[in-house]
């Protein structure tokens, strides 16, 4: 079995995650170079100018040009990071959803301390929901009298998606703020009660992964683990039919 997790970034199975990872690597390379270079300078300075008999401090220090260049350089590099990486990546992540006709849509409704996954079924339309219908057997409050709800499927903590297919997830919360986090997908989005926010992703590998909650949501925050299973289209359909 492939090793997904370790010390450092988890494996990335998303189509968009490589860009994020690249930014993280570039950033850490930049930070390492800057810090190590600077640390060497610091150590040399500390040794060279230590107090010792016969050594005197100099009153008028020269005006150094190098630090100014360094500061300007850091500023320019940060501008480059913004324009070259962060803006385009985040724009893609936030503003460019996959076409709805090619994507699978799913609603994810978080609660203390579980993920309710709502699939629209074959018609692709989510049935109406009503908070007054919520019960242990019907965690999202699906209105079964709505024709669109007939083929809808809800699961708890089981998010299955087909591989190589874009998924649009409509995220909301029933009670407090949760944060939908798929470590291997480089997806994280707060779920604010009273609002629906969308996120999307496409898996390029199959496997059993997990959903984590990234925002403190109460005493069960630590165990708000969901299962994120990426499988072939056929297996996915089979699973859906099973769930019916």
């Amino acid at each position, binding site marked *: 079995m492939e090793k997904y997790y370790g010390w450092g970034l988890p494996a990335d199975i998303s189509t968009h995650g490589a860009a994020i990872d690249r930014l993280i690597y570039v950033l850490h390379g930049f930070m390492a170079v800057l810090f190590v270079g600077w640390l060497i300078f610091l150590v040399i300075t500390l040794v060279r100018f230590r107090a010792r008999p016969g050594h005197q401090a100099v009153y008028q220090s020269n005006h150094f040009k190098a630090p100014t260049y360094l500061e300007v350089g850091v500023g320019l590099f940060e501008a480059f990071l913004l324009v070259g990486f962060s803006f385009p990546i985040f724009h893609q992540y*936030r503003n460019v*959803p996959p076409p*709805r006709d090619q994507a699978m849509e799913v609603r994810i409704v978080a609660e203390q301390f579980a993920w309710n996954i709502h699939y629209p079924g074959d018609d692709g339309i989510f049935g109406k929901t009503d908070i007054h219908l919520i019960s242990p057997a019907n965690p999202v409050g699906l209105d079964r009298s709505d024709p669109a709800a007939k083929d809808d499927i809800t699961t708890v903590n089981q998010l299955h998606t087909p591989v190589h297919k874009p998924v*649009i997830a*409509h995220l909301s919360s029933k009670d407090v703020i949760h944060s939908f986090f798929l470590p291997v997908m480089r997806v994280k989005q707060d779920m604010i009660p009273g*609002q*629906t*926010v*969308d996120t999307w992703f496409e898996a390029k590998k199959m496997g059993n992964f997990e959903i984590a909650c990234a925002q403190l949501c109460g005493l069960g925050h630590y165990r708000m683990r969901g299962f994120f299973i990426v499988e072939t289209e056929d297996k996915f359909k089979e699973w859906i039919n099973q769930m019916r």
Partner: protein
Amino acid sequence: MEHATPEAIKRHVKVYISVFVALAFLTVVTVIVSYLKLSLVYAIIVALSIATIKGSLVAAYFMHLISEKKIIFWVLVLTLVFFLALLITPALTGLEIRSYVS
């Protein structure tokens, strides 16, 4: 307001009275306008403009800002900048939250 002679103070008193009259007048105006049933946008513009004028009168004359020292202005300008940032930014970010659910 300089530490002035009794005569100067007496002049100030006259200013205070006229400011008071202006404030009372503007209060009545803003209430009358509110009965005109303007559309919300115009109502907001008119009411807040009048309130700003009234507020400025109070600040300028009763609080003596019109002749206040520079140091006070610096404190207030700084405050005003952050005040405005605080006032509008949350609402702006709120408008940007998006969902594609129909």
